[in-house]
């Protein structure tokens, strides 16, 4: 077997070494490629039938498209084609960045688990490692295409996706993915040869987390925004992919953008073919640079870095204050846990990276043309903040801490369980630690969200609610992890725990919000059907009426005080009960944990 193939096979085995994935080793590549082929065939066929059924009929019934009907060439553009562009930008970003993230992440782990001496003592040449890695990473290509196909289902529902369009979409995404994979392999080879030590490794991990959070938030914002196309981003490779995909779907470089109740024609920048040429050029450039780099690598010149010894003689004010704030021996436990968490650079950065959420939203909001009128912003702010961001921030904060506390206490758990009240103290200290870190972060987050949403309304009550939500979700997260402890840094178990925590927190927090908010916004709920009905009136009358109604509804002081007090009390009681049950369950389950 050629050396590069042996490297590829070994990498693949490492990648698929989990309990479940091990069984799928042989069939997975075949399954993935078959699934992509099936989806590529099915999407245009389904799209055609849906297009004829819904789109044409919808077009004929849509009075707003009347001006466009005057020009037969624009007939099929009577729909917001910027949606195809948006999906293109999303899939393009994923195609470039996922391979890079995956490869760097794996390399940072491999430094720990695979002995470098084993590789270096074998007669391998750098080219073998590079080619082997590239081949195994090609597995990401069908995954990306498959994910993209699913993401294009909404496009297929509203626009006619032909076979040619799907083929062009796949070519663009393949070019982007191959470039991403190649760059990823080069980066991971570089990491292999320079062996990042201690702090550099932590910093790299941290950087990955920050980029990941930024990308995730950007994607969420882009996919959920009601905004149209951004301007001035023509130089970004995902935008080139988006331009090609828009051209493939709309067969034009002019995007039809729906802003408010009107359609506008916006030129796509760069145009489809320029985007394609730029993609090709980037692909070729990265391979040429890679080949040049490859010719210079020599495994014999690898030198291991050296760690610096850190000496800590005196405790700082932060720990001393916490030591005084809690009773003994809980204070020692909390301080020790905090030191263990905060002295690890990637833990802190991972946690702090949650600030990226509102910052990206702020950035995206500035970059994109909004179709939301100013009068509707207060409604949007309330609903976004109290709905999506509340739950997201409430769940995300504890989940940035709790799993890592468990990972860090992997080996010491038995020692703690051996001590007289160790398990109980461990649970209490985890809660305390998570709250000590989460509460200031919640305040910062709430204020940033407040600014990101335009600084409307009073942030004080929202902040109070957010803090209580964080307490509830933290205790739920501790409860879930104590019931199902996961001690590996990564793995499917974390996904399961995350899902359980997310669902449990979502249910409790949503119920609390309903109890808390409903008595205060009865007037808004009451006028909701009216707002809906008004939106069918011709412009600008509808906008004026909607804005006035919203303003009046949000400004009127609610009068039913007993109902508000009851709702608030019920919400607090529900939260308190959740905290009590979670903590009790955590202690019991962790006592019974046997590894």
């Amino acid at each position, binding site marked *: 077997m050629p050396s590069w193939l042996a490297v590829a096979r070994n990498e693949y085995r490492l990648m698929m070494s989990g309990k479940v994935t091990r069984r799928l080793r042989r069939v997975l590549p075949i399954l993935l490629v078959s699934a992509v082929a099936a989806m590529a065939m099915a999407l245009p066929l389904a799209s055609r039938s849906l297009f004829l059924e819904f789109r044409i009929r919808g077009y004929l019934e849509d009075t707003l498209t009347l001006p466009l009907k005057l020009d037969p060439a624009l007939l099929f553009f009577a729909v917001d084609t910027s949606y195809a562009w948006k999906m293109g930008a999303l899939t393009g970003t994923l195609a470039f960045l996922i391979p890079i993230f995956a490869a760097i992440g794996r390399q940072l782990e491999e430094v720990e688990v695979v002995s470098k001496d084993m590789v270096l003592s074998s007669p391998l040449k750098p080219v073998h490692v590079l080619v082997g890695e590239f081949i195994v990473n090609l597995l990401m290509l069908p995954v990306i295409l498959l994910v993209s196909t699913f993401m294009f289902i909404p496009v297929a529902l509203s626009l006619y996706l032909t076979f040619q369009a799907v083929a062009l979409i796949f070519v663009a995404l393949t070019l982007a993915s191959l470039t991403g994979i190649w760059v990823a392999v080069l980066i991971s080879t570089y990491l292999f040869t320079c062996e990042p030590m201690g702090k550099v490794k932590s910093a790299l991990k941290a950087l990955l987390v920050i980029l990941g959070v930024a990308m995730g938030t950007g994607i969420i914002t882009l996919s959920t925004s009601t905004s149209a196309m951004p301007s001035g981003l023509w130089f970004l490779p995902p935008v080139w992919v988006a331009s090609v995909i828009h051209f493939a779907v709309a067969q034009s470089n002019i995007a039809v953008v729906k802003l408010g109740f009107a359609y506008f024609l916006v030129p796509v920048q760069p145009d489809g073919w320029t985007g394609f040429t730029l993609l090709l050029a980037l692909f070729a450039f990265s391979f040429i640079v890679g080949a040049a780099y490859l010719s210079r690598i020599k495994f014999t010149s690898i030198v291991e870095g050296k760690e610096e010894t*850190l000496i800590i003689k005196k405790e700082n004010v932060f720990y001393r204050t916490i030591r005084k704030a809690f009773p003994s021996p809980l204070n020692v436990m909390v301080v020790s846990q905090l030191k263990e968490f905060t002295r690890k650079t990637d833990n802190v950065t991972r946690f702090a990276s949650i600030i990226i959420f509102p910052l990206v939203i702020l950035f995206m909001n500035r970059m994109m043309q909004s179709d939301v009128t100013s009068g509707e912003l207060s409604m949007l702010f309330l609903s976004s903040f109290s709905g999506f961001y509340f739950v997201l921030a409430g769940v995300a904060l504890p989940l940035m801490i709790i799993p890592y506390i468990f990972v860090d206490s992997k080996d*010491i758990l038995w020692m703690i369980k*051996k001590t*007289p009240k160790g398990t109980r103290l461990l649970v209490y200290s985890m809660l305390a630690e998570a709250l000590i870190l989460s509460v200031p972060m919640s305040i910062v987050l709430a204020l940033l969200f407040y600014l990101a949403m335009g600084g409307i309304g009073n942030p004080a009550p929202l902040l109070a609610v957010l803090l209580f939500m964080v307490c509830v979700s933290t205790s739920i997260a501790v409860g879930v992890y104590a019931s199902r402890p996961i001690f590996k840094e990564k793995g499917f178990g974390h996904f399961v725990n995350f899902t359980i925590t997310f669902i449990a927190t979502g249910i409790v927090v949503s119920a609390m919000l309903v109890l808390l908010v409903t008595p205060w916004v009865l007037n808004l709920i009451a006028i909701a059907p009216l707002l809906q009905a008004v939106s069918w009136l011709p412009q600008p009358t509808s906008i004026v009426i909607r804005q006035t109604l919203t303003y009046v509804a949000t400004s009127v002081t609610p009068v039913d005080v007993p109902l508000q007090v009851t709702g608030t009390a019920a919400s607090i009681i529900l939260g308190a009960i959740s905290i009590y049950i979670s903590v009790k369950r955590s202690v019991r389950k962790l006592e*019974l944990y046997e590894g």
Partner: protein
Amino acid sequence: MEAVKTFNLTKFYGFRVGVENLNLEVLSGETFGFLGPNGSGKTTTVRLLNCIIRPTSGGAKVGGYDILSESEVVKRITGLLPEVPGVYERLTAREFLEFMGSLYDVPSAVLKRRIAELLDFFELGDRADELLEGFSKGMKQKVLLASAFIHDPEIVFLDEPTSGLDPISSRMVKDLVKMLASETNKTFFICTHILPLAEELCERIAIIDRGRLKEVGSPDELKEKYGAKNLEEVFLQVTGRNVSRDMIEWV
């Protein structure tokens, strides 16, 4: 008086046997060796006797206290050096010992003095304020040994105490156990598969295999019983593990 007494102590992990019907007596002040091949149930027994896990059936008394109903007292009077050298990597050695001492409610003035004494004894005094992540496996083992003694326990469980230690440190541990056993009437329960260590330190030994107790007695009694020259021969005969000649030739 027995420091440890088990009654048909049994632990199953699903269908897999951890230990089965273990009946054992360790006398107070005795240095007791608990021998067995890898995966024979030594660590499970130690975890059961330290109330870290619960038995499937049967029971045990440690220091006269029941491991199920009086677990908190049992935990207070015992010290444990676990098999895996698990520490909080980003605490200093001093901080870690302070942490462990606090969990046993050692008064802070006493704790400070004991930490200094133990760190000096294990020759870690000059590295007391360094993060444990920079320590070698042997040095971490020393810190864990120190933590096992931090609350001055009556009964000390040492699971592979010399694992990862250099010959000097290993000698130091053996001398420590000998000294404490002779001068303080502490009971030592030592799990190991390093037979010379058991032979040198232990007054009596037990051999466990596949979760079942196979033999108990003093090293001399067992050697005589099996007509063996040393404990290694006894061990191989009791556990029935012999390296096949064919295998050696193949290698």
